[in-house]
């Protein structure tokens, strides 16, 4: 009886433990996509040479980008806004130019599935720059009201 019990128990544990989680392969919370345009010729994109992005309120290092016309940066899902410090020519000491922009939105949790859980989409987005004497950002133009996916850019920055 004891042997049988152990055998049955072993069988139960073995069968019970083979429930492996799926791997999350679906799209999770979209990042903000900023596309850089030429202020003087507003239909043309213009690459940024060196850019560092610091997300205020996190202890993370800055995100670094170079030689690109579009950047993907994460948004906070736990708050109604995320503030970024965008520094151009971040590798030079003399010509550092920091501009701060605040993105406001209403986050909304959307269920994806077992392995991915919930993602967030961002509704009613607004972009507000903090103005200073020496702005490298000339103009901000919103493209989409909502940030739902990462297929197209959500905002244009002219510089």
């Amino acid at each position, binding site marked *: 009886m004891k042997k*049988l019990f152990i*055998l*049955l*128990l072993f069988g*139960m544990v073995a*069968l*019970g433990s083979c*429930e492996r*989680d*799926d791997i*999350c392969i679906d799209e*999770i*919370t979209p*990042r903000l996509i900023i596309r850089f345009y030429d202020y003087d010729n507003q239909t043309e994109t213009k690459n940024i040479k060196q850019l560092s992005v610091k*997300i205020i*309120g*996190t*202890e*993370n290092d800055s*995100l670094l980008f170079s030689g690109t016309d579009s950047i993907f940066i*994460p*948004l*906070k*899902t*736990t708050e109604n806004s995320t503030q970024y410090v965008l520094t151009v020519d971040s590798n030079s000491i003399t010509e550092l130019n920091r501009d701060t922009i605040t993105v406001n939105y209403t*986050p909304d*949790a*959307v*269920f*994806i*599935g*077992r*392995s*991915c*859980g*919930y*993602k*967030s989409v961002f509704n009613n987005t607004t972009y507000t720059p903090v103005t200073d004497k020496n702005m490298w950002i000339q103009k901000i133009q919103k493209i989409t009201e909502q940030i739902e996916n990462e297929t197209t850019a959500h905002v244009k920055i002219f510089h």
Partner: protein
Amino acid sequence: MKQLLMLKYFINTIFLLSCTVCFSQEMATQEQDTIIKEKYGLRVGVDLYNPVQTFFNEDRKGLELVGDYRVSKKFYVAAELGYLENTTEEDYLNFTTNGSYLKAGFDYNSYTNWLDMQNAIYVGMRYGFSTFSQTLNSFTINNDPFLDGIAISQNGEKFDGLNAHWVEFVLGMKAELFNNLFLGFSFRGKKMISTKDPENFKNLFVPGFNRVFLNNSGFGFNYTLSYLIPLYKKKK
């Protein structure tokens, strides 16, 4: 006598575990011209898997009662009635499913018994129905890993009045351990027919169905201990 019982028990256990044909010495020495009668009746029992899980696993509490009634030489009407409370932990979610279920159908015994033995290797089908609630205990929004440092777990809500319908295909066996006492095992493949899902969530676990896989299928098994209440006998 005790040794004989042990032998019978041992043989039936071997039958249960290996599906091999067996008979005991005692049976074989019966007179050949005896008219063998088979028992018909109601068999009631309990699933052993859930109580063991309830004891070892605090995320699962449940009880399942099983029963079958022999209607012909090969066919049994069968049913399971159960209650289950189960907590599922995933990478980004934790939820508790709570509810009861009923499964009804038939079993077909494909095993030809020696003399008046009552072992069974059977196939069957069930229709399953469950009513339950899902409580999303907590979830974390799946954001870019760069912001993992500020991710926080949020409390979810409770979704009541949910239900599910499904079919099960059963493959199982039963062995008579002692007079009229049976130990059984069955494996079940399941397919969901329809479910009432909560809003902005999904029935990832259903009592009686267990984990609902991506293609709406599932599997399960039970170990049962049951007792036959003999009502009448019929010639084999």
